[in-house]
């Protein structure tokens, strides 16, 4: 058998002199001591651009490891065709992934919020139509798992809807022997004991809560609509009720202005005793970007990818010092091969807004012209809005087809590609080409293997 180097094998030198070999398609990861790493470089360089290796090189015992990790592959193996087949197969049998907005209402008025100015909560008739929609899907298809994201507006303003719908979902999943999980994306200000009980009974195991800084920063960027109340203090009170009970992904939205403030927030978390190995409290930085017209005003405030990643690396190291398990965690950008890249292009991903509209992309959930249908009506699979998601593929893009980061990127956000958002597309490429391997090296450093 003849062998060639995989197009997706990456050689990453570490500061220690060791090196890492990573394959984006197989996900295999091997650390080599300096001599072995040099030998690996020599082996792979001996057959560049898909040319076959000399047969004699197979006697090197390192070569067996390269085969095992798919760092080298059969000369006849078409990796791109494999990715394409896998992508099409997996999107068609994707998990049942619902995002439900039980209300557009929110008690905060964040200036960068991408959800527009729609109002209103989901009534019981709409909720029953969701149950009917889900029941029909279960009757016709076996899902590997069902996941629900509760989103809004502020979803905890609509606790009865979460309670009512979750009971039905849990019942269906039990009946069809399907694993169920749910997360709530919340501003954390409405975290009453009642809310904790409802979420616990609703199968919620993860919360995403956002802080933008300490009180003086957070209250300005995420002000309560009742101006006399500090949204920061409300959120901290809320966190006190849920830290240790749920996995908390504590999101810190950053731009040029509050990037340095994140460090003060980290010190605050440490003072609260929320950082540690077994607490499941994971603060992470998220770069604000002008995703939609509703938040286009933030465009001039955005920090650069380089600046963000530099801060993020230091952030991970600080968390590690506090005992937070950062190494190899996907939340902290540890590279993973993707099967498909977005819920919107999966056949079984749906978003329901309070008005009964069914959407594919969460970023367009307040835009009725983007809906693919309405609850209570038969879903038309030939609806133009549905077809554009169903037919989109990164493999149509010649740049993506030739890219060595394709398996972990898969073209990035499909919406950015469809709408030809050149800045976002360029930043996505920049992230993978300039930062992914460095991030992997940081994880290796933190793991201290």
């Amino acid at each position, binding site marked *: 058998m003849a062998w060639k180097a995989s197009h997706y094998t990456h050689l990453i030198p570490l500061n220690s002199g060791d090196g890492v070999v990573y394959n984006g398609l197989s996900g295999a990861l091997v650390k080599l001591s300096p001599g*072995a790493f040099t030998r690996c470089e020599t082996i792979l360089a001996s057959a560049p651009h898909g040319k076959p290796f000399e047969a004699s090189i197979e006697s090197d015992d390192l070569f067996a490891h390269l085969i095992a990790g798919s760092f080298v592959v059969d000369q006849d193996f078409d990796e791109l065709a494999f990715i394409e087949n896998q992508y099409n197969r997996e999107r068609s049998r994707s998990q049942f992934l619902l995002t439900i907005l039980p209300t557009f209402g929110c008690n905060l008025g964040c200036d960068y919020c991408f959800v527009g100015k729609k109002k209103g909560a989901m009534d019981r008739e709409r909720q029953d139509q969701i149950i009917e929609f889900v029941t029909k899907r279960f009757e016709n298809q076996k899902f590997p798992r069902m996941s629900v994201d509760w989103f809004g507006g502020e979803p905890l303003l609509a606790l009865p809807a979460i309670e009512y719908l979750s009971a039905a979902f849990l019942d269906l999943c039990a009946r069809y022997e399907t694993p169920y999980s749910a997360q709530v994306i919340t501003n954390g200000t409405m975290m009453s004991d009642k809310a904790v009980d409802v979420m616990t009974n609703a199968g919620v195991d993860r919360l995403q809560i956002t802080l933008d800084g300490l009180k003086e920063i957070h209250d300005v960027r995420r002000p309560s609509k009742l101006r006399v109340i500090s949204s920061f203090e409300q959120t901290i009170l809320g966190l006190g009720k849920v830290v240790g009970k749920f996995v908390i992904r504590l999101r810190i939205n950053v731009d040029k202005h509050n990037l340095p403030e994140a460090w003060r927030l980290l010190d605050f978390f440490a003072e609260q005793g929320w950082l540690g190995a077994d607490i499941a409290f994971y603060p992470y930085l998220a770069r604000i970007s002008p995703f939609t017209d509703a938040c286009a005003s933030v465009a001039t405030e955005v920090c650069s990818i380089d600046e963000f990643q530099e801060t993020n690396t230091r952030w991970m190291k600080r968390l590690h010092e506090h005992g937070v398990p950062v190494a190899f965690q996907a939340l902290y950008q540890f590279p993973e091969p993707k099967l498909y890249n977005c819920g919107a292009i999966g056949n079984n991903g749906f978003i329901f807004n309070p008005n009964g509209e069914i959407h594919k992309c969460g970023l367009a959930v307040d835009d009725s012209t983007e809906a693919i249908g309405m609850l209570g009506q038969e879903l038309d699979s030939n609806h133009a809005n549905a077809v554009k998601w169903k037919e989109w593929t990164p493999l149509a893009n010649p740049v993506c087809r030739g890219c060595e980061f394709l398996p972990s990127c898969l073209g990035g956000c499909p919406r950015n590609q469809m709408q030809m958002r050149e800045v976002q597309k360029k930043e996505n490429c920049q992230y993978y080409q300039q930062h992914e391997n460095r991030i992997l090296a940081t994880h290796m450093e933190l793991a201290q293997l």
Partner: protein
Amino acid sequence: MPTRKSSKKKSTKSKKTTATTASPEVVMWLRLPKAMSVAELQKLGFRGGDDICFSGDTCVAASVMRPDVGIVVQADLQAALDKAGLSRRADPCFGGDTCIV
């Protein structure tokens, strides 16, 4: 699941290695590309049990789950992530108040 080699075996091998090379080269598997059979692992020098053969000038130094890092060598990544309460970045995510993509 293969594990670290015993210290007894190591001392024998170390003597042999230091006689020929100053620093033996190390191949440390951190993530397998798939669930691999014992036979496949044996081809890489993993023996299973407590005793691993470090043949040639490559050696398998770490081959067990380590609690201080999320995943080292292990076949079922999803199970490890589930245990940690985290999902793969590969999972599609609809974002939240701004999207992580």
